[in-house]
């Protein structure tokens, strides 16, 4: 996916690590620039007058004009874009139309709630998917235990197909209504975290454990695993020392997108549990046509997704230098 | 009878120079073997001749004229090393050969049915030429063995009526017993049809068997070129000497006894 500039950058530098770092950082910066531009362009792509749309058709023309001015919409486009970028660099994201508050303030107030469910979910997904997928692969390799394999692929396939928000609804119905173990909604004590985190974890964990299983089976079929057998190493060493590092890198590469979509999954799950995070904020902002707020949240989500993929790529590169040398 | 002449061919991938300033003449109707270790640039040179490698400078002349494809139809054809990858898995082998036939075999004004019949006949002729039963034209490549696929690939190349044929390691993916049959076939067709051939191989014994002239490459340079007997019996360049000394031969076994 490199552009011409990326290629020439990469090939001009001799050290593969520096070349990789440059290439990857350049790609991150380019994507961030695209994100910023898209967020800026959004308000101009909306058909009609966004301020009029936000304030309603009956709004006082003077108010509309004043709001246009405060949003800078009366300026020329390049000027607006320049101001937007400069403000962004100073952490200023404009003012929410609905709440009449700085967008950055709303976001910093809401972001912790989102992270509080996203980060534990992220950790749980890894803790569940890797051992489960590996064990399933070892137990079913070479066509052993056909029924077990069928059960595993069936269950994980089903769980992977259930969308997060429906799972959230189902979990609520089961563990908050029918069997009231946990609160139905809103953030409170530790028990209020269980259902949202679970709703975020199950689907990606099922999908990732499928990926891990397939990758494990692939790794077990590699020649170097035969070499490990030829060395008569005990099974524990063969799986943990020889198979695990290889399947982790490839699983992470494939699962990288899963993690950034986990962030997006919070939007739906938060809305089911009325969780006071960014997800409920953005949906409300879209319905209320509070465009500066939408802009701000889109920027935060987008930047977070890009950072996650960047970190995953770098982690994979460190663990598997071969792929770095080959050029990503 | 046609000849191939390369003048000052240079191929670069980014900063890496794979082939540098190579001049080579394959005289009319003869076979030149191109040998060298892996990474010597011999395959890249072959690709450059047919335009599959990024040629920085140099000219490819066929019969003294620039070999730029005329209306997409190139006078130079190439047969690839791996017969399992060089045929479209979704195309019947007949269609693959038909694709190579020059347009207008029987003129534009003839009815479509006659044109198709003429094409089918041509396909059958070329398949027969390489020893494949024309009835198998409807099969997809997965129904054929490696040796048969390589014959089809050869038929496809020949159907384009090339003046020059480039054979890039065409037997190295084949089993020993099949190798001999493909080499026999190639030699017979070359003599019958009289095209010039650049035969790229790492196997000196095969080159010696098939070629009139041998060119040796090392590190992207052409280091030695001459009649086969002379080069193999009195090699002048150290690379050539080294290559010859590394050939394991059955004769060793005899000497030992």
């Amino acid at each position, binding site marked *: 996916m490199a552009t011409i500039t990326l290629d020439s950058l990469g090939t001009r530098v001799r050290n593969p690590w520096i070349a990789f770092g440059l290439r990857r950082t350049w790609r991150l910066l380019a994507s961030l620039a695209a994100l910023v531009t898209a967020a800026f362009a959004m308000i101009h792509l*909306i058909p009609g007058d966004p301020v009029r749309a936000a304030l309603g058709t009956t709004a006082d023309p003077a108010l509309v004009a004043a709001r246009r001015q405060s949003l800078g919409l009366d300026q020329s486009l390049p000027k607006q874009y320049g101001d937007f970028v400069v403000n962004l660099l100073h952490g200023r994201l404009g003012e929410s139309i609905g709440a009449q508050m700085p967008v950055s303030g709303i976001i910093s107030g809401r972001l912790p709630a989102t992270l509080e469910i996203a980060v534990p979910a992220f950790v749980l997904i890894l803790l569940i998917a890797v051992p489960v997928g590996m064990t399933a692969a070892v137990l079913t390799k*070479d066509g052993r235990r056909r029924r077990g394999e069928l059960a595993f692929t069936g269950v994980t396939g089903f769980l992977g197909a259930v969308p997060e928000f429906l799972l959230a609804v189902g979990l609520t119905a089961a563990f908050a209504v029918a069997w009231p173990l946990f609160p139905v909604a809103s953030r409170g004590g530790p028990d209020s975290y269980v259902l949202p985190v679970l709703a975020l974890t199950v689907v990606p964990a099922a999908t990732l454990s499928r990926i891990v299983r397939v990758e494990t089976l692939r790794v077990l079929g590699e020649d170097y695993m*035969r070499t490990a057998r*030829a060395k008569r190493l005990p099974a524990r060493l063969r799986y943990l020392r020889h198979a695990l590092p290889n399947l982790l890198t490839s699983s992470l590469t494939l699962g990288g997108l899963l993690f950034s979509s986990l962030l*997006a999954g919070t939007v739906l799950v938060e809305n089911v549990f009325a969780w006071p995070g960014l997800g409920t904020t953005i949906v409300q902002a879209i319905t209320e046509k509070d465009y500066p707020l939408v802009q701000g949240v889109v920027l935060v989500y987008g930047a977070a997704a*890009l950072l996650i993929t960047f970190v995953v790529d770098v982690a994979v590169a460190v663990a598997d230098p071969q792929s770095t040398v080959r050029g990503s | 009878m046609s000849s191939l002449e390369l003048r000052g061919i240079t191929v670069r991938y980014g900063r890496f120079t794979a082939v540098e300033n190579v001049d080579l003449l394959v005289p009319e109707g003869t076979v030149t073997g191109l040998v060298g270790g892996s990474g010597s640039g011999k395959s890249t040179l072959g690709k450059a001749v047919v*335009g599959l490698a990024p040629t920085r400078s140099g000219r490819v002349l066929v019969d003294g004229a620039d070999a730029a494809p005329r209306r997409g139809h190139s006078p130079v054809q190439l047969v690839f090393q791996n017969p399992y990858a060089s045929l479209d898995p979704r195309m019947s082998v007949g269609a693959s050969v038909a694709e190579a036939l020059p347009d207008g075999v029987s003129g534009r004004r003839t009815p479509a049915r006659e044109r198709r019949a003429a094409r089918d006949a041509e396909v059958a002729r070329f398949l027969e030429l390489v020893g494949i039963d024309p009835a198998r034209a409807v099969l997809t490549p997965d129904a054929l063995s490696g040796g048969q696929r390589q014959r089809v690939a050869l038929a496809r190349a020949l159907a384009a009526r090339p003046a020059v044929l480039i054979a890039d390691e065409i037997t190295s993916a084949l089993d020993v017993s099949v190798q001999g049959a493909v080499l026999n076939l190639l030699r017979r067709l070359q003599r019958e049809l009289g095209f010039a051939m650049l035969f790229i191989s790492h196997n000196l014994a095969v080159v*010696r*068997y098939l070629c009139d002239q041998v060119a040796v490459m090392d590190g992207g340079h052409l280091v030695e070129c001459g009649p086969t007997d002379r080069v193999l019996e009195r090699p002048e360049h150290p690379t050539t000497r080294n290559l010859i000394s590394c050939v394991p031969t059955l004769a060793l*076994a005899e000497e030992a006894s």
Partner: protein
Amino acid sequence: MPHHDHDSSLRHRLGRTLRTPIGITALTACLLVALVAVLGPVLLGDRAARIDTDAINQGSSAAHLLGTDQLGRDIAARVVVATRLTLRLTLLAAVIGVGGGLLLGVAPAVVGRRLGRLITATVGVLVAFPGLLFLLFLATIFGVGSTGAVLAVGLAMVPPMARLVQNLTASVAGSDYVAAARILGVGRFKMVVRHLLPNIAEPSVLFATQATGGILVAFSGLSFLGLGVQPPQYDWGRLLNEQLNRIFVNPAAALAPGAAVVLTGLMFGLAGEVLAQAGGRRAPQAPEPARGQQPNPSEEPATDGDGVLVRACDLRVTFPGGRQAVRGISLDIARGEAVGLVGESGSGKSLSALALADLVPHPGRVTAGTLRFDGHDLRDDPRLGTELAMVFQDPMASLNPALRVGRQLAEVAEVHLGASRAQGAARAVDRLRAVRIPAPERRARQRPHEYSGGMRQRAVIAMGLMGEPKLIIADEPTTALDVAVQEQVLDLLAEVREDSGAALLLISHDLAVVAQVCDRVLVMYAGRIVEDLPVTALLGGAAHPYTRALVGAVPTMTTDPGTELATIPGRPPEPGETGGGCPFAPRCERARERCHRTAPELSDFGPDRQVACWFPVGTAAAGGSVAATSYAAEATS
């Protein structure tokens, strides 16, 4: 004409797959959903729209299976009726997504280089963002409502679809057959239609089908968030949105539209699975007929004799279904001896070697009358870890890419010789030095990708030298290497053998390689050893017609260029194709009636030589007396 043959076979495979349980389920589900979508609004439309102020917010009852909503409308009917709108919007969005993705995906192959790169880069940036974020962004622009949601969901699918198609196209475009077509002067447009599209069709269709399931879910999500379908219209997501806050009172009303989404989503996934199977990527496996052909191992002589290191009698490797890839071979390897094992691909030579190393991969089963290494049964013998060294064909693949080379060597000493980490590391460096790897201390800390091909193979040999090998099994050790490097590796093997006194079993398709290193050659054909002869007899002295043909088929530095090379007509039999006769008989010009009837056993042919042929070369044509000792075999078969 060109694709006709393939199409019919695809149709055939699709028909076969549809008759499997998963195929039947998928087909039934699709028909059912289509039926509900078509008939639902016709039959239940009125009921779903009827407002009943007497029955507001009721729970489930006989009259209202899932209860009623805040206007007293029947929820069950509304869920059924919503099927049509949900599916229509889903499919509409899918058309946008698949069409756009296909266009953007194939475009780089058709348009100029610059524009192509720009498209690829743009798609690359777009896929980095999660789909839902993209969706919300587009929903903001297009505004709340069905049209906006269709556009948003459809466009959000474009980047991943385009990325997939681009990857597929790039791999097809880089293939030899496209290069061949390019040399033939096939134009860009014809290239796309003839070569690219047919070869990316199957995975694209599969992905599109499964992505349609994803679109259904995404669309329902948007409606659920209140950003999609707006009242008075309703789809499943909208119904879910309306009923969620009543989940305490009437959970069934909230769960039913959710279940509809999940089940329909699964249906798309299942349909994709069926298409994938029909495409032959995951062909339904026909159970192989189990043939009750149990090998009957004969009893062995009790002792091996002093000089014998490896003794195998009646060694067989059987795969499920009774296919035998190795069909009863017997061989001895003396201490310090170098034996070559030659044959074509499929002859069973590699599997024989793996059987001797107790490494035959899973479905393969090894049976043998005797299978002894240094006087002990070699199966599950941990001593093999130090006394048997293996060298495989591809040195890159046989070293673990994630571990440092030194570590991979050292662990042998740690596991088998009780060495500490430091001792193991020290020995690893010492062994790397022994195979003449320069700067072994530094090299031990590197990973395999930093080694050259020849050096990797040296490292693999060094790994075998961590213990005290009595046997080195090398399976095509130089096939993946350059000619010059091949020479070095062969020299190294000879040297190692001299130093350690280990025996060598060298498997190769290249007679010349074997001739250079070995004392004795075993020739395999169709799972059997057909000749056992000293290497000195290989050139000109072979007794089996197959060995002679193999020798004659390869040009050597002394072959007369004026003569035709020897060829062997026909092809070797597949495992399971061998009848009662000599497996080589159909390709043998010396074959007579007896050869087609009875298979000859491997029997003595002069000193230190054995051959399995009724009419070996070098005897009187009518004689065959040398092989006459195996009349017993004829009688039993």
